[in-house]
């Protein structure tokens, strides 16, 4: 069942996830579960314990978490769900399964150093408010760092 599972994911499941005793406190405190009834972090942990990690990684559910870390605080077993979800997303992304909206955000940061464009309208408002001009964001350095990480490879693959 755990055949082919990346080593660090296997270790994380063994150290953290297996201690989940399915109490559901994470679900009760989860904002996404309130807005989207199919979203269920308890079930996600159950699937992982049962070895169905491929389904979890390829599904849409892991991308619906707001990373509010409430489940992290309320879990009586110290599972640290929100951290597990970040790890699952990282693995899914390496397998090319990241939603395009996420990659678009990175593209914006890689090309401008920021998540939002500096528009003429904002520049005018800043001037009107007597605010200093926005400084450069060190965009060459930001781009270089991204190139040096796994993220850079993901972006490259998406382009080609």
């Amino acid at each position, binding site marked *: 069942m755990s055949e082919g599972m990346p080593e660090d994911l296997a270790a994380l499941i063994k150290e953290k996830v297996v201690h989940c005793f399915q109490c559901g406190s994470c679900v009760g405190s989860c904002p996404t579960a309130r807005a989207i009834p199919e979203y269920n972090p308890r079930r996600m942990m159950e699937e992982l314990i049962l070895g169905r990690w491929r389904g979890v990684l390829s599904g849409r559910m892991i991308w*619906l978490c707001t990373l509010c870390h409430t489940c992290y605080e309320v879990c009586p077993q110290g599972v640290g769900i929100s951290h597990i979800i970040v790890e699952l997303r990282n693995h899914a992304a390496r397998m090319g399964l*990241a939603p395009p909206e*996420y990659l678009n955000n990175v593209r914006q940061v890689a090309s401008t150093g920021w998540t939002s464009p500096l528009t003429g309208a904002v520049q005018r408002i800043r001037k009107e*408010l007597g605010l200093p001009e926005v400084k450069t964001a060190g965009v060459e350095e930001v781009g270089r760092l991204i190139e*040096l990480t796994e*993220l*850079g490879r993901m972006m490259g693959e998406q382009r080609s």
Partner: protein
Amino acid sequence: MRYAFFLGCMIPLRLPHIERATRMALEAVGVELLDMEGASCCGEPISIQSLDREAWIALAARNLCIAEEMKADILTICSGCYETLKTANVSMKRETSLRERINEKLSAIGKEFRGTIEVKNIIEVLGEVGEERIKAHLKRPLKGIRVAAHPGCHLLRPSEIIQFDDPMRPVLLDRLIRLLGAESIQYPKKMLCCGAGLRLVDLEKANKLVEMKLSLIESAETDCIVLVCPYCMIQYDLTQRMIKREDKAPFNIPVLYYSELLSLALGFSPSEIGLRFHRTSVEPLLKKLP
């Protein structure tokens, strides 16, 4: 008291009026703000952390290095930036192997993380300024104003890293609101997330979450919502205008960033801090000000 002022992206590029109020209010109570030359996006806690945690830490580390060179602690005004920079700072101080991997990447751009500074949020810094000193500057105490505080998520959690206020029963934002003479009211589901983290993949459901919160706040008869994060601000202030209710009139609840509320109490006028740039009108609140 001097800080490397980390602006992030959302406030300077989308909500510059918050930057204006923050600069005016903090300088008025004696905090010197040093601009960070070359600072970029913090590292981005939702998409970049989710795609590659190590890239997230590396981008944050670059910003930390700029403050280290300035020999100043960082002051953040966005809870996303706070979580990002604080996580990177604390994790690299704790884990030697992570720090070495990141420093190897940083060496390509001529930087090195040394672990010589701290990362703070605006509530924390105002706490350091001290209640007495803030009080001494107040010109217009906000008597009779009922405020619904929304502390938000990343200011407080994960507690293992953040270690700021109580992660589920915070008190510090409420205390700062009361300091200005206003009342910090109780309302159900106060600690529930605003839903901003869901906007990227499911805008409709993100809106549903904030609508739920706005309804509860509305029935608690509040004069305004007060928060400390630009993502929460977009959710409450901008999304509020887009929600159409079949059976009721549109929501009309003013939303202020804490430094805007503080600026009003310090005697700054609504026009000099640019309150006109809010999407949901703040007029109902201004009419009630003493």
